């Protein structure tokens, strides 16, 4: 699924990375726990959905090569977070809906979670 489709489905706003909206993501992970992100994201092309808008989210996401982050429930990242994301060429999106809705809608449209992606191979 391309990021621009994600934005359409979730009625999101691009915070940065608008030149890369054709980037493809193959799976999604929704979580706020940084250690979860580190432990479970094993593939590139993963979309991270989270409510954590601080710089750590960027550092940790970068460690596992996440290229796109979607902040849920109307959370807005601060300037510093955005700057760090821009430095790393990441795409940041913000949506008003809660995590549950965001995950549900994306799943309906065919995006899978990390464990399902691994089983499919």
């Amino acid at each position, binding site marked *: 699924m391309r990021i621009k489709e994600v934005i359409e489905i979730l009625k999101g706003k691009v915070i940065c990375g608008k030149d890369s909206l054709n980037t493809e993501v193959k799976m999604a992970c929704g979580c706020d*726990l940084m250690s979860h992100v*580190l432990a479970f994201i094993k593939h590139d092309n993963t979309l991270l959905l989270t409510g954590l808008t601080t710089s*750590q989210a960027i*550092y*940790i996401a970068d460690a596992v*090569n996440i290229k796109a982050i979607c902040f849920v429930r109307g959370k807005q990242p601060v300037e510093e977070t955005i700057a760090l994301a821009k*430095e790393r060429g990441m795409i940041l999106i913000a949506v008003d809906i809660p995590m549950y809705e965001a995950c549900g809608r994306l799943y309906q449209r065919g995006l899978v979670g990390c464990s399902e992606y691994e089983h499919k191979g």
Partner: protein
Amino acid sequence: MGGYIKEVSWGVPNMSTKAKVSPTKTQELAYEFKVKDAMTAEIISVSPKNTMDDVRKLLQNERISGLPVLDRGKLVGIISIDNFIDCIMSGRIDEIVENNMTTKVESLYSDEPLIHAISKFDKLGYGRFPVLEHETGKLVGVITKGDIIKCLLQKLEINYHMEEIQRYRASHIFEDIKSDKTTLTLNYKIKGGDYKHAGEQSGYLKVNLLRLGISPPVARRVIVASCEAEMNIIIFSKGGEISARVEEDRIRVNAIDNGPGIEDIKKAMQPGFSTAPDWVREMGFGAGMGLPNIENCADEMKIDSKPGEGTNLEFSVFMER
């Protein structure tokens, strides 16, 4: 040429070029290039008949720590701040260079590989070495640590696609690089309780590993493990250090802190077991996955920790052949 590097704007290799680069590109370059490629040919020197006062003026004005002594173009000694101090201490201020210089001079040849220079700097701890021409023994230049770094930087830049990203400041990396014949060490200091920057230092390590030509899958495993180690230092201790050694066949990382130490290492290795306080979990940390995750990422791991004595976590990721 100064002895240290100030702000250098850095870059990140183009991530889309997944072509495999041989590991430790910097080491390759250090073997490939010669001392003459990095040295300064402009030499400030004194003769054996100069006075110590002349030496004082030069050391002060040029802000250097030592001068080669040339007698009719031939290197006969080195006069340094230490010699100068000895001279003053024994009250011999009107003395001449000849009577105070060190005659046993450590030097390098212009056609030696740069790696020898790096080795020598590390072993002897001097600030600079005179460079001699092999055939004639003539002094042809001077080389400092800063010269080597500038040279390698320039060569590395030619071999990679770079995007200038201003905020990636590289100066701190080179201050922390030590090198002997076959390894390169990168050091990162971690501040305890510094949640805001959790993962930041591992990010710098990532840039450096990729820049050194470490393959992305190997670098990824090192970085994920390093991130976990960094978080542990932040959560549990007052601070520590992550030290990554690029060795011939592996990247070896030591995460050291003076924190409380791990009471039960076996328990700590269980997924989900956490001694982190609740408020830490509210921030998104402390889910108890750190050590098990490190074990998953690394090929080898060992923990040296005793309550009250801090922790030294060491893990290694083997490089691909």
